[in-house]
């Protein structure tokens, strides 16, 4: 399979009055055609910063200091705003966290989707665009009449379905789903997840699924990466990571999630808080919270660096031997 998105050694920080917040450190991953890639980690670990950096939608104080983002051999880092505008939505689209607020309250749903199509396919007629939206609505299970509705007239689940339709409106090659189910109740959440999976298989999309819920990642993705403090600490096939987690953080993350099947285990909670990312970290970022740190981990001599343990299964070198 072809590589759609290759992120290589991406570094991004936010410039603040207290110093630079190193939000994304040396992140590298590859997403193949038709594959779904999961990004998991606790709040503030840099998942969403990665997502916004991919589309270059970061806030004004964000700086990409190094690295490259190759989307089908197009380098996105350093692209001008007008070139980026062509890439956005046409090649790479995003389903934002909290779809409730993703719609402009005073513009009809149909018009907001139409607007995106119009921007990238100005030659389309009105009828063609309407047909396109109607087709998308059919895929995500919405009625055509929704087009003439305003966002406040829709339920949360409907809005989220419409957001998925919006994300697909320009036939992107890759869709980023940034916690798309956060604000929904579990029943709707399950429906939306199935919808995303269905759409992805139907259209052969590549998907980057970002969540703090490791169970959702297990259900949705082929490959995954675990992030901690702005860095990827473990990466590999989802099945391999779930059956054989190598990094101490991943192990704890898995043990903190209740399982419906199998023997009953006591859930473990992780003490402490994630480190402050201001002015960066040296050594192992996880060592202060590591329950049973190995020598490599605690002495802080080794820098964080992914090493390949098995084929395709990578983990941070400092913590592979921790308990």
């Amino acid at each position, binding site marked *: 399979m072809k590589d759609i998105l290759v992120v290589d050694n991406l570094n991004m920080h936010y410039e603040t009055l207290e110093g630079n917040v190193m939000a994304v450190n040396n992140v590298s991953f590859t997403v193949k055609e038709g594959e779904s890639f999961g990004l998991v980690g606790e709040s503030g670990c840099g998942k969403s910063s990665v997502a916004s950096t991919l589309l270059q939608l970061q806030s004004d104080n964000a700086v990409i200091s190094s690295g490259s983002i190759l989307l089908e051999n197009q380098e996105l880092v350093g692209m001008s705003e007008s070139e980026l505008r062509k890439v956005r939505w046409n090649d790479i689209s995003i389903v934002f966290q909290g779809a409730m607020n993703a719609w402009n*309250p005073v513009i009809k749903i149909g018009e907001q989707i139409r607007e995106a199509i119009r921007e990238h396919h*100005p030659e389309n007629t009105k009828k063609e665009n309407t047909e396109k939206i109607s087709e998308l609505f059919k895929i995500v299970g919405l009625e055509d009449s929704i087009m003439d509705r305003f966002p406040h007239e829709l339920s949360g689940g409907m809005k989220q379905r419409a957001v998925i339709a919006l994300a697909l409106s320009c036939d992107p090659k890759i869709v980023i789903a940034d916690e798309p189910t956060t604000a929904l109740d579990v029943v709707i959440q399950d429906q939306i997840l199935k919808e995303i999976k269905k759409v992805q298989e139907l259209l052969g999309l590549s998907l980057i699924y970002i969540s703090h819920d490791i169970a959702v990642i297990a259900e949705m993705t082929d490959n995954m990466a675990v992030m901690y403090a702005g860095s990827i600490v473990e990466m590999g096939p989802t099945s391999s990571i779930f059956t054989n987690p190598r990094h101490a953080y991943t192990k704890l993350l898995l043990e903190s999630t209740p399982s419906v099947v199998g023997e009953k285990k006591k859930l473990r909670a992780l003490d402490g808080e994630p480190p402050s990312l201001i002015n960066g970290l040296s050594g192992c970022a996880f060592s202060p919270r590591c329950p049973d740190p190995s020598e490599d981990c605690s002495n802080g001599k080794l820098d964080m660096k992914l090493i390949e343990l098995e084929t395709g299964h990578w983990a941070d070198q400092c913590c592979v031997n921790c308990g």
Partner: protein
Amino acid sequence: MPFPVMHSLTYFLIPNLPPDAYQKVLETYGLDKPLFERVQLYVVNFFKGDFGYSYKYFPKTPIELIAERLPRTLMLFSVVNIVAFYTGFFIGKVLAWRRGSKSETWITITSVFSYTVFYPWFALMMLWFFGYKMGWFPIGKFLYPEKWYDAPFDSDVIFSMMIKFVVIISLLQFAAYTATRGIEALSSRRNVRFASLIAIFIGSYFYWNTGEALARKPYAADIAYHMILPVLVVTIVAFAGTALLTRTTMMEVLKEDYILTARAKGISQKRIRDRHAARTALLPVVTSFIFTIVTIIDGSVLTEQIFSWPGMGQLLLQAVLEEDIPVAMAAFSFVGVFALIAHLIADISYSYLDPRIRVKSQG
């Protein structure tokens, strides 16, 4: 005399009235009737729009006076309001968009200055500078009387004609804007809108150069020339409120998630600013704008006094000062009704601007 009405009457007529003439006056104004009957008559006449006769301009009724003065005020202040709203809204949205830049700081400071400046002083300074020192604009009055000696018509005719012209132009533009909303491709939509604007320009050029309008053109131009300075002064004072309010509300809107969505969609910056941010920020701005329209008439008292513009404001002020009670009553009632209508328009327009307020019949 126990009644102030009677007092004013005798004051304006002859101080030493003969008794039979006095009786006659009483009968004319219905003052010989019992109090209850008089109240009833008054209420009935109020709703009929009959306010009696002006004491000062005797044979004329207050309604006639208002009908004569209102077009002058409406002409001046509709132009002021349109100009002030557009400049204010445009400057406000640019300010919010360029948050943190140097130009933003300076324009904000200027706006705050013109928002808080003592208006009569400012108007007099402008009048002194542009009217007296530079001599570019006439000082006061709404026309040069010497030009109008042999004019075959009243200034009111010209005023109502000019108002009709402004209204029709705005309606045409609005119609062109609405009609082109269905065009899908943005570039052709823009072109059609531009073409319609040019067509309106050409149309109005022909309108003023043919037939009846051609004969009236020099008079209309005279009035328009007299309008420039008042419009400029009131606009400078009035735009700042809109600009500052737009800036504040739009800065809130820019933080919303849907602005990020719009950016992610690859939409151009200008379109995000105008279509997404400014459109949503428009709601409170329009409300405050309509409430300033309410103050047109009472606000015009100051302006018209300073620029000697004989409109509603001056009529109201003179009527109060000279105890021309029927006229004062009529003018104040008119202001009240005008305010009610403006609030109604505000409510209706709000439901068009914000779909969340619209109530649909369920079914």
